[in-house]
C-alpha cells in the first residue's frame, strides 16, 4: 500500500526536550570506541574552544531517530515499520552538541516518493537548544521496501 503523499510537508512539534549528559556522551563515545578527549575531558574540550565536553558527530541521531520514529509510527501514515530500512543520513552542524544542552527536535516530512515499488520518505529533524538557536539539522532518508508479491 502506498504511503499517503498528502503527509509531505507535515511537521511534528517537539516532544519533551532532551538534556545532554556528560556520562551519556562518555557512554556513547565508549560504545563507538572513540577515545578523543573532547568527549570526556572538560579541560581538553575547553582548550578546543568548547564550553563543555562535546558529543561525537553522530550522537544527535539518537535523539532525532526517536522523533523520526514518532512520525513513522503515526497510524494515519500507514507505514509498515517491519519493512523499514535506513537509506541515507546527513548532518549539517551549526555547532557541536555539548553536555548540558537542552535540545528539542522538530521533525518535518520533506518528501514521500514511490521508487521501483519502494516507498522513500525524507524526514528532516531541526534540533534547537534552550535558547531557540539551531544546533544541527539532521536529514534521514527512510526506505520502506516493497512487500513480497506486490
Amino acid at each position, binding site marked *: 500500500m502506498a504511503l499517503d503523499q498528502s503527509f509531505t510537508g507535515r511537521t511534528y512539534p517537539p516532544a519533551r526536550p532532551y538534556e545532554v549528559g556528560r556520562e551519556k556522551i562518555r557512554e556513547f563515545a565508549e560504545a*563507538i570506541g572513540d577515545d578523543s578527549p573532547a568527549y570526556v575531558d572538560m579541560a581538553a574540550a575547553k582548550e578546543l574552544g568548547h564550553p563543555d565536553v562535546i558529543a561525537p558527530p553522530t550522537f544527535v541521531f539518537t535523539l532525532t531517530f526517536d522523533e523520526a520514529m514518532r512520525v513513522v509510527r503515526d497510524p494515519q501514515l500507514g507505514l509498515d515499520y517491519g519493512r523499514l530500512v535506513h537509506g541515507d*543520513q546527513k548532518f549539517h552542524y551549526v555547532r557541536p552538541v555539548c553536555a548540558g544542552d537542552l535540545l528539542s527536535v522538530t521533525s518535518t516530512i520533506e518528501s514521500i516518493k514511490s521508487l521501483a515499488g519502494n516507498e522513500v520518505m525524507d524526514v528532516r529533524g531541526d534540533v534547537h537548544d534552550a535558547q531557540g538557536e539551531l544546533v544541527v539539522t539532521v536529514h534521514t532518508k527512510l526506505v520502506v521496501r516493497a512487500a513480497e508479491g506486490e
Partner: protein
Amino acid sequence: MTAKVAYADVEVGAELPARSFPVDRATLVRYAGASRDFNPIHWNERFAKEVGLPDVIAHGMFTMAQAARVVTDWAGDPGAVVDYGVRFTKPVVVPDDAEGALIEVSAKVGAKLDDAERTVRVDLTVTSEGRKVLGMSRAVVRLA
C-alpha cells in the same frame, strides 16, 4: 573550534591516515544500549535470518560513527565537522565467531571548498569484506 590541521597546509588529493575498526557481537550490544536502537537485526541471529538477512548486521549508524573517526582524529577537534553524510549501500555482516567483522576506512581530501571559511571536503571509502558498505560518504571540515 580549533582543528589541528591548517587549511593552508592541505592539498587536494592528500590522504588521511586509514583505519580498520573491528566489530563483534559484543560491540553491537554495547552500541545498541548506548544509542537506544534495539532493533533485533543487530543482535538476534534468528530474527535477522527470518527477515532475509544473511546474519546479524551492524547498525548503519555504528558504521557511520566509525568512518567519522578517521575525519575527527585527523582534524584533531570533532567539533570542526560542519557537514557529514552517507548512504547505506550494503550491510556490515557480523558473524558470531572469534573475529567478527572489520570496517575499513580510507579517506582523502576531495576539494578545498572555501578559502575564507577554511573548509575542505573529505571523501571517505568504507568497506567490509571488500564490499563498499557506505556510499556518497563525505564530510566537510573547518580547518585552522
